[in-house]
């Protein structure tokens, strides 16, 4: 009985998972095929892998250039976002007022305007500031568009820290900075980490602004994909290779931080 349940659970979980990740597996397989193999009918599961498509993608656009931009923009905007969001969340969590909730909701509501609607204004702003096609512009935009969610997540995380620990630190002679440095930061590491990660993922995957505010210098991996987004003859393998190259770094980061993410994504649910 017990064993049967376990067996069923194992089979079900693995079955569902494989179905769900199949598209990704297929993407990976296709990336290592030749174009002819990629559209072969019936589809080939076993074949001699080739790196040809990767070479082709790299020849056409300097992968490293885009990748570096992606890393810079997402990492810097994450760090910057944390730096701005953490104090705000701290203030909201530990100096709660009647306004706190309204401010939070207002922040979240700023994310509701569709990005396209703000394109021209933002484009004009960026141009006025001379920031078109600069990493700085992307960083600022990423940071700002992730900020509401970050504040919310951190706020929830901070709220889980018992207030008396902070008071204990105060009694021990810690000022506000000491409190943050020695107590809050280490205790909120989980939520800081998961917030940062989520932000990293969102920045990495952001396509609209990176596409529209950058041209040659500041393009991120999301823009790299854009040049493969309509077919050019046989292009399945190339598309797969390019997609794989664009998503692989962040997926790997995601895998390794899965535990961290699971622990931190509480949104205050741990009571």
């Amino acid at each position: 009985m017990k064993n049967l349940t376990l067996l069923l659970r194992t089979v079900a979980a693995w079955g569902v998972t494989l179905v769900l990740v199949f598209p990704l597996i297929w993407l990976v397989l296709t990336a290592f095929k030749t174009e002819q193999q990629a559209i072969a009918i019936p589809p080939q599961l076993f074949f001699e892998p080739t790196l040809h498509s990767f070479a082709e993608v790299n020849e056409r656009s300097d992968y490293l250039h885009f990748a570096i931009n992606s890393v810079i923009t997402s990492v810097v905007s994450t760090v910057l976002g944390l730096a701005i969001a953490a104090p705000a969340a701290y203030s909201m969590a530990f100096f709660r007022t009647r306004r706190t909730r309204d401010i939070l909701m207002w922040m979240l509501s700023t994310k509701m305007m569709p990005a396209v609607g703000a394109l021209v204004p933002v484009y004009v702003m960026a141009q006025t500031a001379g920031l078109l096609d600069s990493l700085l512009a992307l960083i600022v935009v990423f940071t700002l568009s992730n900020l509401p969610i970050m504040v919310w997540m951190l706020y929830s995380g901070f709220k889980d820290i018992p207030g008396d620990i902070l008071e204990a630190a105060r009694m021990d002679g810690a000022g506000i900075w000491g409190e943050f440095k020695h107590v809050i930061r280490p205790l909120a590491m989980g939520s800081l980490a998961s917030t940062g990660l989520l932000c990293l993922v969102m920045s990495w995957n952001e396509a609209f602004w990176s596409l529209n505010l950058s041209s040659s210098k500041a393009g991120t991996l999301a823009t790299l994909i854009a040049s493969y987004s309509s077919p050019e003859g046989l292009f399945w393998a190339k598309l797969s290779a390019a997609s794989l190259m664009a998503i692989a770094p962040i997926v790997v980061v995601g895998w390794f931080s899965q535990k961290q993410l699971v622990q931190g994504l509480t949104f205050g649910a741990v009571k």
Partner: protein
Amino acid sequence: ATELVIATVNNGHMIEMQKLTPQFEKAYPDIKLKWVTLEEGMLRSRVTTDIATKGGQFDVMTIGMYETPIWAKKGWLKELTPTAGYDVDDLLPAMRNGLSVDGKLYAAPFYGESSMLMYRKDLTDKAGVTFPERPTWEQVRDAAAKIHNPPNVYGICLRGKPGWGDNMAFLSTMANSFGAQWFDMSWKPQLETKPWKDAVTFYVDLLKKYGPPGSSANSFNEILALYNEGKCGMWVDATIAASFITDPKQSKVADKVAFAQGPYAVTEKGANWLWAWALAIPAGTKNADAAQKFIAWATSKDYINLVAKEKGWAAVPTGTRKSTYANPEFMKAAVFAAAEKKAIDSANPNDSTLPKSPYVGVQFAAIPEFQAIGIAVGQQMSAAVAGKTSVDQALKTSQAAADREMRKGGYYK
């Protein structure tokens, strides 16, 4: 060194140009090229946003025959001032005219195209069909019926993906040959007239009966993939496709293709379109000199020779220069060359409809409002192909949409 930022579409010829960057940089050591390669729709929106807001992100832009006159008139583009060696007069007149305003050249054609019928000789032979130089649509339909053998091969592949540069490019030319026009002389949209109805009905029937599945999402590149796999019996599309489907490296049917002029129904006028992807310099650039040099290089005879040397004559960008077609090597390597030249020569943007029209353009009307109209109509046509709406309803909605835009544009009250 000067850095030139070039925005371009991800078409085969452009990608080839990108790969030749080192050659250019060797010739002009103080100029570095930076490429922004985008899908056509994205490119258009990027480039338009940038030039309209004077963003100045690009030094060279890839634009089409549609934008060139509009933008040039607004003064958004720098005039091209090629040196004598460039041989402006070698450009095909149709192209040069389409890219000039008041006799001044504002964009240099990188490759040009018209449309024509590309069919599988092996299949038509088997079916006992022969095409005249310019077949009628009736003939094409009969042939499609005979060849159709799904899922191995579909009778005919035509564009269905919505977009003024996608399905509407094709459908406009087809409608032209049925005697239709976009606007009459008082700028009233004509979409509910009989020629449009005939043309669209014919088109939808044809695709439903003999087209591949998913036609309503197919455009040039999608069909190219199908064709190269041998899935299409016939295809009416850009002449530039010819160089790909006859390339054995890409195509499984490279040696089995034959060409005819774009089919017609009522009139031959406007039965094949005219388009060029051209390189232009936005007025706001700081690197105009370098940009001039680059454009001169990329659209020169030498460039064509360079590609020929690197990739063979069959792979050169065509449809731009007389000299290309005068080259025997090219004519020998490119089986489609004659048909292509003829198609281009026969297209006349200034007189492409049976009734007199107030607009310029074969498969488009060179007014700013046309994009919105083309998109709205294209959407309806695509829905009709997908069987989501009837042809009558689609045209009715299209007419209303077009009317709305024209009113908004202030053409009439």
